[in-house]
């Protein structure tokens, strides 16, 4: 009975471990939902074949966001010789690649942002307009968003000792809300940047590729990367050659962590049950062991007592027997003596007679009296 219960709990524990470790699959199977972005959300199409590397977008961005003025002016194109990334004084950056090809980088405003999914205070969130918005008033400055971002976009004001913050492109949300274009899109002299509804931009990109056969790589970067981004890219050369990673996959960031997150409530629900079970089994084992020990002690004591009584009885019997024999011997002796005396009294001369007078006299009474 006891063993079978223990076995049963063991099986349950094994099943629970299986559930938690295999939760990745379960979570996916259970959700079955896919977020394809807010309807009618905005985006920007960046056609890198049209970009001439004039850095006007960088300048506009700097002005709109009131950023620190750089050491070299924006019309100094020598800065293009170095590969750069976004930082606290540049929310967007244009880089030059082999073959005089240029590509602009900034926050891609993912459909399901890794940064927002990673933020443990909801300081980053996806706005209905399509912009990924940062709320400085909540930010703790843990920089997990920077770890999470597959595009290495968020930057941190490391030299601000007490109020450091994350900086990144806002998609010019304040301007969009006023019905105006983002700074960089507005200023671009070559229409390398097009602002619009994301769905429309994808159609436009397809049309452009169809109308200009051979001019574009057959891929709209950002349509599906990491679950899709609001910023979309066209390129004449492989995207890897303009500094964009082609190995990001199409799985959105929240999906990547859905498994371990799904395991959390299950662990909370099941661990106490199994741990209490294990504790209870041990407690019961201890109790049974105690009972068994007590029973064994009792049995041993009883047995010892029994043996003692038996031994005592045997001894008593033996003693009684010995006494009987002793009495019999005494009686015999007494009788012999009496006989001898009687004989001597009857015939003091005759010392040897064959007659036995004991048969006439009652020897028992005399024996008892002697006692």
């Amino acid at each position, binding site marked *: 009975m006891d063993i079978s219960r223990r076995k049963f709990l063991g099986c349950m524990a094994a099943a629970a471990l299986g559930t938690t*470790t295999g939760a990745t699959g379960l979570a996916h199977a259970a959700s079955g939902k896919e977020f394809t972005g807010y309807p009618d959300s905005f985006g920007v199409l960046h056609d890198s074949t049209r970009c001439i590397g004039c850095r006007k977008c960088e300048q506009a961005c700097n002005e709109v966001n009131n950023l620190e003025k750089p050491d070299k002016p924006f019309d100094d194109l020598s800065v293009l010789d170095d590969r750069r990334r976004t930082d606290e004084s540049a929310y967007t950056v244009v880089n030059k690649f082999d073959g005089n090809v240029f590509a602009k980088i900034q926050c891609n405003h993912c459909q399901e942002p890794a940064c927002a999914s990673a933020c443990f205070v*909801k*300081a980053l969130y996806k706005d209905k307009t399509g912009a990924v918005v940062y709320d400085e008033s909540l930010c703790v400055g843990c920089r997990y968003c920077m770890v999470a971002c597959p595009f290495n976009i968020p930057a941190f004001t*490391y030299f601000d000792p007490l109020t450091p913050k994350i900086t990144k492109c806002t998609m010019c949300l304040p301007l969009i809300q006023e019905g105006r274009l983002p700074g960089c899109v507005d200023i671009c002299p070559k229409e390398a940047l097009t602002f619009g509804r994301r769905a429309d931009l994808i159609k436009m990109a397809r049309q452009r590729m169809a109308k200009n056969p051979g001019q574009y790589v057959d891929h709209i970067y950002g349509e599906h990367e990491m679950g899709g981004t609001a910023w979309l890219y066209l390129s004449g050369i492989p995207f890897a050659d303009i500094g964009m990673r082609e190995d990001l996959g199409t799985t959105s960031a929240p999906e990547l962590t859905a498994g371990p997150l799904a395991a959390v409530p299950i662990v909370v629900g099941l661990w106490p049950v199994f741990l209490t079970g294990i*504790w209870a089994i041990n407690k019961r084992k201890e109790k049974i062991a105690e009972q068994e020990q007590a029973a064994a002690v009792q049995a041993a004591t009883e047995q010892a007592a029994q043996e003692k009584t038996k031994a005592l009885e045997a001894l008593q019997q033996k003693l009684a027997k010995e006494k009987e024999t002793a009495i019999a011997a005494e009686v015999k002796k007494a009788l012999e003596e009496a006989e001898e005396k009687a004989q001597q009294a009857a015939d003091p001369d005759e010392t040897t007679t064959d007659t036995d007078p004991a048969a006439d006299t009652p020897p028992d009474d005399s024996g008892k009296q002697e006692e």
Partner: protein
Amino acid sequence: MSQETPIARKQYLTPFNVITGIILVIGFVLTVLRFTKGIGAVTNLDNNNPWGLWIGFDLLCGVALAAGGYMTSSACYIFGLKKYHSAVRPAILTAFLGYALVVFALHYDVGRPWRLPYPIFWSQGTSSLLFEVGLCVFLYLTVLFIEWTPAAFEWLGYKKIRGIVVRLTLMLTIFGVVLSTLHQSSLGALFMIAPSKLHPLWYSGYLHVYFFISSMFAGLSMVIFESTLAHRWLHHKMDDTHLAESDGVVLGFGRAASFIMMGYVGIKIIGLAVDNNWHYLATGWGMWFLVELVGFVLLPAILFSMGAREKNLTFIRVAAVWAVLGIVLNRLNVSLIAFNWHLPAADRYVPSIMEVGTTIFIVTLGVVVYRFIALKMPILHEHPDYKQAH
């Protein structure tokens, strides 16, 4: 400590105190620098490498190595291995101090440390594994604190409240295991959001399982290592029960660690097979991966098992240090070394001397506080008034 010197003042100028004093002064200077000049002034962190030594070592290793608390208390109170009872208090104390120092270290690393309660009380980002880590660490720190208070209450003589806390032991232990399972695994899961940055040999869909399982033998090894240190320096504070049970703890924990480490090697190989990452083993990264898995998990596991079989305590004590180094190597690999592996060498992160200094300062702080508590309170011995009471 116990020996009397003719001149009382001389006692304070022990080598330990002098070195500790110097480290604490340097730490104070670094603290001032961090909070006046900014994180950028003391660290080599940059926009590509937002997490450095303070996360990779202070947080990840700190939490993993403090796993001895839940391992020891669950062995004793849940699994009924009462012979480990004398190991529970020192393990709970080190775990509590470990977590307290992790939280303390975070105050240096995060931008606005006074907002650390935000994720718990103000704005909960429940989709984040860091939220999960934060909540669990907060709750577990509270649990560990409560679990540790009986020692303080015995020291102070508060019998009644001590009795109340002691009655909560089982509940606290179970809660501790639940919370540890969650945040130990979540620390690994933190990196699952960045498959494009972490080398495929370390990135895995099982990363959370790896972190949880490795925390088990990290905790066991750390308890053994701490017992080695405590026997060396705090022997006179141990009572007969502690001394009598101590060898059994080392042997038992060594055997358990060996067993779990073998299982861990097994699931790591399963991970390789699931993602079909065998071909990476032939690369330089593969060599480094094997150094970690074979050199710092499998070999110490074998030494543990040899020590356990031959009842050789020295083997086990050496294996424990070895395994602890292996955990440190693994956590640094995931968070720093194999993280951002595709970046050009010039963009890679190497900690600054000031970051290392701050980390040494925080570890030293932990040693000083542990020593103070172990010398004053009934940690390595039972309080005479409460023998057999717990």
